[in-house]
């Protein structure tokens, strides 16, 4: 009961702090004093998702490393695009930070419906990359396809049916690029969520699926799906995905990991960005952060701003080549 009460109290305190901060626009404050108020990190994606879990876990260390509490919140809508649009109301050096990734900056502006996108990558300053998640392609276990050589043989005179999460998602573009490079015909089938796409493969409705490793974990463990390849240049070898050969080894380079950038509003001074960056880089090294990463099967990353910009550019290229 005591625990319960303290949790309730915490929540009241936290939420009141949130409201004190939420609407206020920060004024130009001396850079070294930043942050003078609690910092809010907005996750524009679902509660309970990978980014949200990482955000909330990392926020715990805010006080310790930034000198102010960090509040993790979510603002949903239009696959993150609503929150990214609303974020433009912030001024430089604001105490609000937001997550974003290639979906918002590389894909959304280059597919149908781009007219509705009101923000550009330049409206934000990349602080750091929270994590990278390597995509994996899995096949129905009955097909006995365990690497890209098997796939090439199988696809030589056969149109492959691949399940993806959303026809304009990262997975769809990676799949299109891969099959184009392999010279295999493919039919993309879009499902409403990676879990449903994977289930369709398990049922035999489709033959292959692309997803995060963590999403395919259950079915691979159970032996209903077999991993074909990981979209990386290094092989993956862990308890679940045993010695999976990377696409990079086959000379394929039109792939990218799923990333989660921490962003500040444009014009935020470099010192502030550096301060947040070093704090978050340190947080990412914490033991339980690392444990969470391995549970979620994502990798921590030390990408520089340049790496992040290159990533966005690279994905734009892939999207434009595979529309």
């Amino acid at each position: 009961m005591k625990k319960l009460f303290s949790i309730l109290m915490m929540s009241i305190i936290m939420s009141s702090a949130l409201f004190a901060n939420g609407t206020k626009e920060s004024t130009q404050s001396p850079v070294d004093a930043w942050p003078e108020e609690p910092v809010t990190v907005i996750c524009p994606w679902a509660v309970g998702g990978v980014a949200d879990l990482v955000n909330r876990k990392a926020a715990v260390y805010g006080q310790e490393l930034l000198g102010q509490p960090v509040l993790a919140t979510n603002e949903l809508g239009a696959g993150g695009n609503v929150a990214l649009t609303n974020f433009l109301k912030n001024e430089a050096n604001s105490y609000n930070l937001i997550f974003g990734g290639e979906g918002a900056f590389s894909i959304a502006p280059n597919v149908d419906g781009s007219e509705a996108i009101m923000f550009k990558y330049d409206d934000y300053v990349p602080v750091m990359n929270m994590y990278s998640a390597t995509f994996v392609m899995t096949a129905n276990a009955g097909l006995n396809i365990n690497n890209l050589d098997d796939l090439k043989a199988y696809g030589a005179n056969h149109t492959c049916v691949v399940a993806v999460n959303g026809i304009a998602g990262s997975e769809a573009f990676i799949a299109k690029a891969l099959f184009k490079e392999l010279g295999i015909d493919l039919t993309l089938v879009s499902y409403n969520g990676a879990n449903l796409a994977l289930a369709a493969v398990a049922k035999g409705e489709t033959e292959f699926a692309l997803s995060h490793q963590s999403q395919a974990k259950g079915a691979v463990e159970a032996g209903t799906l077999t991993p074909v390849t990981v979209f990386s240049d290094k092989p993956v070898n862990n308890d679940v995905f045993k010695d999976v050969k990377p696409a990079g080894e086959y000379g394929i380079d039109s792939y990218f990991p799923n990333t989660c950038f921490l962003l500040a509003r444009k014009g935020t001074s470099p010192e502030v960005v550096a301060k947040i960056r070093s704090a978050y880089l340190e947080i990412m090294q914490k033991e339980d952060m690392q444990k969470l990463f391995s549970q979620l099967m994502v990798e921590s990353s030390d990408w520089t701003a340049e790496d992040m910009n290159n990533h966005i550019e690279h994905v734009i290229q892939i999207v434009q080549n595979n529309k």
Partner: protein
Amino acid sequence: MDLFLQGSALLFNVPNFLYMNLGLFLGVIFGAIPGLTVILCIVLFLPFTYTLGAVESFMFLLGIYCAGSYGGSISAILIKTPGTPHAAATMLDGYPLTKQGKSMKALKMALIASTFGGIFSAIVLLFFAPQVAKFAQMMGTPEYFLVCAFGLTIIAGVSGNNLIKGIIAGAFGLFISTIGIDAMSGGTRFIFNNINLYSGIALVISLIGLFALSEVLAKSEKVVVDTKVNTEDLNKENAKFTQEEKKSVRRPMILSAIIGVIIGIIPGTGASMASFFSYDRARSMSKHPEMFGKGSLEGISACETANNAVTGATLIPLLTMGIPGDGSVAIMLGALMINGLTPGPNLFVEHGPIMYAIMIGLIFVNIFMFLQGKILTKWFAKVISVPVYLLTPIIVMFCFAGAFSVNSSLFDIKVTLVFAVIAYIMSKFGFSTIPVLLGLVLGTLTEENFRRSLVLSDGKWDIFVSSPICIAFLSLIIITLVLIINSQVKNSRKKGENNE
């Protein structure tokens, strides 16, 4: 058996039951307030569970989930505003009962039916999960489409007295459901370059407008005098069920529980579809179909049993295959993941005791829901003794706050107002708004599965007769359509005779 005992040992701890009851309490409140949904409640309180163990957090979340499924009926019955989309069918008979001064009876029926449905599905989960999962495995995209298409035939049952108008309203709802990004092509539809329409119109947002706010506009019909209901009358109300009533609800409850479980295992369909489905079935099997829509206890029992029978059933694909059946369950997936439990066929092998604790816990969640509900309904029932001139503005405040909270967006409040005006105009011209809601519930699913089927079959239509389940559903649809047309022809003949 061993796992059963180990699971029980894990479950019977005081904190588990504390969190369960806290979840139940929050769930009822979020369910009952129009605009506040079960999903929102889970989203808001999920971060709490990050510090809890697997069983504790699941008891908490299941408490919210089950009670939320029941809570929507309270406002549907008392103020003609379904607190959640799946209580919309409950409103059809619940509110007429309130008008007859039988609100306690209606509330009691809803609670009993919800508890029955919940326990039924919990037992199915506990004992038949593997078999049900196998059945779910057999259902693919074309089967999902046919289930939705069958669901659309319900429009005939909720059209009021004019089928043509019902079809118009239903098609209109289906059209509105296509607004936003199209999952199959990635293109946008009717968003007028507005980012707020990008992901379409949330069901709750339209629900608040269609039912709650339009009802407020309809207050213009008469000058509202003090229509205070005497609290004493409320206390005097004889809420005991007669033998006949008890007997009449038995069959619809059992049937609805089965329907709820079947719908529950189909991803994406959810409780609203289940409640409309069973409402329709209950009416067609009832001895007093004419009472439906005028305050039939059978109607309430059917919808409420069904929407709670969904709760346990959605957990089956989640736990056995990692497929979340609806939004709330998708969030629970996160709660499993953070505790290192990966849903999938191996979950029961690796974490048997925890799984059994959760499944047995679900039965207790429903028992405690009943106990809490019994106490809370007495309080909630007092709502109708609040005079209309006070209640109306308070309802609007709740609706606005609720509509805003879905996406933290003022734009959504504008959307609800538009829906309120649409519903008001429609009712002026004798169009029922229930088919619009049905269209909104089923639209995306129907279209997506239809188009996905044709992508899978390379454009060949025979995919819809490719499995025994397909053929079964197809025949059901055909039979239902024949029956509907038949009764229409009979009706118009009768009218013709009367006119002459």
